[in-house]
């Protein structure tokens, strides 16, 4: 359904009806902001980057070839923009500052889990960009290698190799960090 709506809206925009772009924005604002958030862990910056992604999509609507789904094209465009932005100005927000509104484990005595999750995310942000971007997109697309490869514009084999290497780096770095006696201070 969404694919047909996207195509209809794109055709209307290309025919000169700018207001039809609002349908695209409303359908995809959540995913695009959340993808940006995974890159920078800063809500304000995520919205700024998502807005820029929508503007670029608007400018480049005519370049969508319709061979791939509109969402694939849009995610590739957004991912490319986010990657460039994060390489230009790296994320500076500490994961200590990241709100975890849905996480009630701390109140249940699950503080170690919370800290471990933060440590993992922090370690992902510290990865070299090519591994970090691949891991972010792989998990954003529900561990779908093919979708991550399309968003990155890379062959699936390259994505698999980067995932393997990225995970290896994470595994090599995380155990000592997690076994530290005073984890909170270490983070």
């Amino acid at each position: 359904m969404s694919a047909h709506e996207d195509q209809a809206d794109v055709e209307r925009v290309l025919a000169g009806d700018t207001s039809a772009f609002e349908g695209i924005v409303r359908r995809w604002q959540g995913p695009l902001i959340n993808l940006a958030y995974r890159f920078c862990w800063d809500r304000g910056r995520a919205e700024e980057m998502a807005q820029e992604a929508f503007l670029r999509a608007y400018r480049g609507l005519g370049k969508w070839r319709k061979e791939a789904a509109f969402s694939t094209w849009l995610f590739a465009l957004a991912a490319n923009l986010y990657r460039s932005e994060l390489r230009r100005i790296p994320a500076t927000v500490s994961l200590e500052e990241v709100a975890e509104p849905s996480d009630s484990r701390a109140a249940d005595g699950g503080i170690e889990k919370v800290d471990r999750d933060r440590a993992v995310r922090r370690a992902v942000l510290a990865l070299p960009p090519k591994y970090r971007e691949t891991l972010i997109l792989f998990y954003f697309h529900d561990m779908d290698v093919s979708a991550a490869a399309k968003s990155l514009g890379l062959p699936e084999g390259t994505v698999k190799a980067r995932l393997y290497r990225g995970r290896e780096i994470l595994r090599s770095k995380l155990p000592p960090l997690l076994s530290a006696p005073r984890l909170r201070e270490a983070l």
Partner: protein
Amino acid sequence: MKPDDLDRVLSQKEEILPSSGFAAAVMDAVRLEASAPPPIPFPWKRAVPGIAAACLAVVLVFVEAIRHQGPQQLPPAWLPVLELVIRVVTSPAVGWLTLTQLLAFASVTLSMRLSSGRG
């Protein structure tokens, strides 16, 4: 940490909701973009012959000036450079080089037009 732990942590959906005015802000920016006049493309078609003619004229003026003035009036350090320039400009290979450059330019232009669907 087990591999599945890594998957569990990294695939956690920590969704954030767009702020209430986000879509409106995007549409304002889009309307602003739509109402702005399109950027004027650089007139390459007209500029390229002019640029080429200007470059050629500079080289010719330089060579002619040297011929009329005589190389002996130049600082000695310039002489090897001057000799090199005259040798390159008067070499028959220059014609071939120019031809290959023009062919390469035409080939790139044609392939870009074909790939963008304007050909």
